[in-house]
């Protein structure tokens, strides 16, 4: 398990870093997809098979939509004209490294309580929770998604 988490973690972070270093935005999209798939495989290894599969399916479609948007709107989607499209690179690096230092220190210094493994099938347990004690969460998510549908159409529709 340690080797799996380490290896897939390196893949996830490595492809995540490459997203912001390659010239081609289309390539960056697929690297981001690789990062998501690595995390999804980790979730499946943790025992959350349903959620991991949902993430893989959702992200594959989402990244395809992102690639279409790039071709539609961006001026340099394929990276054929190499140009830097960043501002305040060193300031951003400094903030990111400080945040990583703080979070990683928390990960190693906080004493976490760890208990045994799950007894019930996690997918059944998740369904029971969402249709039972977590119903308010589920309803809030449903309402948020409905508001997103309405808001997205309202913002994106042509005004002419």
């Amino acid at each position: 398990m340690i080797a799996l988490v380490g290896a897939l973690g390196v893949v996830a972070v490595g492809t995540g870093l490459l997203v912001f270093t390659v010239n081609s935005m289309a390539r960056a999209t697929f690297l981001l997809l690789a990062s998501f798939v690595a995390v999804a495989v980790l979730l499946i290894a943790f025992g959350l098979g349903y959620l991991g599969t949902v993430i893989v399916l959702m992200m594959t479609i989402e990244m395809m939509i992102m690639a279409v948007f790039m071709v539609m709107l961006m001026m340099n989607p394929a990276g054929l004209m190499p140009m830097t499209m960043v501002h305040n690179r060193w300031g951003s690096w400094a903030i990111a490294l400080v945040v990583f230092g703080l979070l990683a220190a928390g990960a190693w210094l906080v004493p976490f309580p760890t208990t045994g493994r799950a007894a019930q099938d996690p997918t059944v347990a998740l369904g029971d929770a969402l249709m039972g004690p977590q119903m308010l969460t589920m309803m809030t998510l449903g309402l948020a998604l409905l508001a997103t549908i309405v808001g997205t159409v309202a913002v994106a529709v042509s005004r002419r």
Partner: protein
Amino acid sequence: MTELVLRIALTVAAALVATGLYGALSQQSIVMIMMGLELVVNGLILGAGAFWWAGGGGTDASVLVVVLVTVMAVEMALGFAVALALYRARQVDLTDDAAELAG
């Protein structure tokens, strides 16, 4: 053993959050900023999954993963809507060209 795996997974999650933060802060292209935000949420998903695995039995962490996946979908949809509206209004795809709010 369980605790060590949890700490390694949380470190990886922290690295993903920091990488996404760097991208969201430094990139000029709107789509690349959205990719940075997605990476941050990716790190949060990994952290929640690791806590579910180490915590054993409870459903709170897996419900959190469901919430995070929804957050990602909402962020993506609204981000594209804003990018489209901005492009319709002034044909820009960089945040630096959209520094003023006046339509």
